[in-house]
């Protein structure tokens, strides 16, 4: 991402914004001037990140159906609309990771709720705002954070991998369906990152071999800029 780019025209929502890649994205995009709202479950962490970055914090759990519309209301109410939605929040399923045969149904359901149903519901609730952005020529984009586990069958990553595969495919279908409304959908695999989620999954990993979340955030931001219509990009380059 070019250092001088100014995103002050963009209104961006990020789920899972108090940790890992989501937190790195909130920091990066607010530093570039974007108007950011982020979502996370714990009020204390939300308040802390909001105070640090100036972004608008929304307390909510994308895995809970009843939280979705209150989240959507606060995102669009605070930002006055929405141009970019980044589905970053993820659930591993069982912790520690487990063979599918040893996975509790409830853990699998939790992974599906956060990784598939949550993005489906939140996209649906915010689709009107994104379509309005597209009609105004602002460039409406939905980014989902994917994983190589969505494609490769890794032992003991069953709940996570299956849910991420569903998310990746759903993102592709949304893209087919909503492209004519001017909304673009992008899946990004940021790779294995040195984040709390990865520490939970692989506690004994060599952290020096993992990617820094800040670097992955730059890649996501680059993908975001690449997906913006050319007219919008001309408008945001500072």
């Amino acid at each position, binding site marked *: 991402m070019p250092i001088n780019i100014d995103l002050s025209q963009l209104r961006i929502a990020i789920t899972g914004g108090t940790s890992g890649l989501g937190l790195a994205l909130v920091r990066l995009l607010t530093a570039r001037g974007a108007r950011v709202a982020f979502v996370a479950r714990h009020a204390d962490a939300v308040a802390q990140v909001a105070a640090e970055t100036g972004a608008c914090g929304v307390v909510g759990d994308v895995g809970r159906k009843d939280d979705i519309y*209150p989240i959507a209301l*606060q995102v669009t109410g605070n930002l006055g609309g929405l141009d970019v939605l980044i589905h970053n929040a993820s659930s591993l399923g069982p912790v520690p990771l487990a063979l599918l045969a040893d996975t509790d149904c409830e853990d699998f359901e939790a992974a599906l709720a956060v990784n598939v149903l949550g993005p489906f519901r939140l996209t649906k609730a915010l689709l009107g705002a994104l379509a309005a952005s597209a009609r105004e020529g602002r460039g409406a984009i939905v980014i989902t954070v994917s994983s190589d586990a969505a494609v490769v069958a890794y032992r003991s990553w069953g709940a996570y991998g299956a849910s991420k595969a569903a998310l990746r495919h759903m993102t592709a279908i949304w893209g087919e369906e909503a492209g004519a409304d001017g909304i673009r959908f992008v899946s990004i695999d940021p790779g294995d990152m040195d984040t709390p989620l990865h520490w939970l999954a692989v506690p004994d990993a060599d952290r020096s071999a993992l990617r820094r979340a800040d670097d992955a955030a730059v890649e996501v931001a680059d993908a975001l800029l690449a997906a913006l219509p050319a007219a919008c990009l001309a408008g945001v380059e500072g």
Partner: protein
Amino acid sequence: MIAAGRRDRRAAKLAVVDARGDIRHLPRAALADLFQAGDLVVANDAATLPASLAGVHDASGATIEMRLAAWLRAGDPTRFLAVVFGAGDYRTRTEDRPLPPVLARGDRLTLGPLVAVVDDVVGHRRLVRLRFTGARGTVLGGLARHGRPIQYAHVPEPLALWDVWTAVAATPAAFEPPSAGFAVDWATIAGWRGRGVGFATVTHAAGISSTGDAVLDRLLPFDEPYRIPGGTAVAIARARARGGRVIAVGTTVVRALESASDGAGGVGAGDGVASGRIGRETALRVVDAILTGVHEPGESHFELLRAFAGDALLGGLVRTLSADGYRNHEFGDAMLLERRPLRTAAGMAAA
């Protein structure tokens, strides 16, 4: 939740009424097949606030229901015009709701996690100007968690936000849903697009539709802020230039577009406030047809329809649709009422 009403959405009915009063009865899903290339459909993309807040009048300890009814400053969620009821909720008809305790300037109201202060009582015991304490984000969070959609006794199930947001709902601006928009889903819009029928939106802050109090109801609708995007103004000008018609989805779109009329068939883009009523005396300058719910004489929405058609036609229409079992509440059936006849195929070719 009104899951039952949602499930039979495809079974909902649509009466297409031409300027002579001739009626065609169609399934509502046929909406995607109506209109002609060059026509433009304009919907209201206002999302609906959870504008009913249960709480307590601190000074008396009395329970109240506060219904946010209109913006005092467009888009500022800390200040509202509001209608106050005494104890109870939507399950009691608004006409039968008790008065709130006597409110005075400076009174504090505790509404769940929110605290509000009465800035003024506006000429009626039920009508106040209200100011929430706290910053914008805090107030929006409190509304999102504690507020419920405004609803009326004819729908017994408690409504959730997903029941009152239309498919195209974007930013929270309305106090009650722009309900004609329930007829429009994404497949409908795709159907129009495939046939060269345009789709555009305005954002119009539909206010409270009824208070149950005859004195207050005479003041409705309150002033309603609206925004007309530049793209919508351009699309209307283009439709006009091609001889296409402008079809408004709902009375709120008529209010916004006619309020923003430039007098020559087009509209100006930008922010405005719609005030006053549209009725029999109003000359429509922008809108050619309205897609709306089925309204009855006496409702303010019905009064607006008198700008589209004469009383004889509307009277006959109401009787016919009632006899045919059309449902006349906000989650019910729909009708399309034309101000002038459909253009002929030959007219299209000439255009």
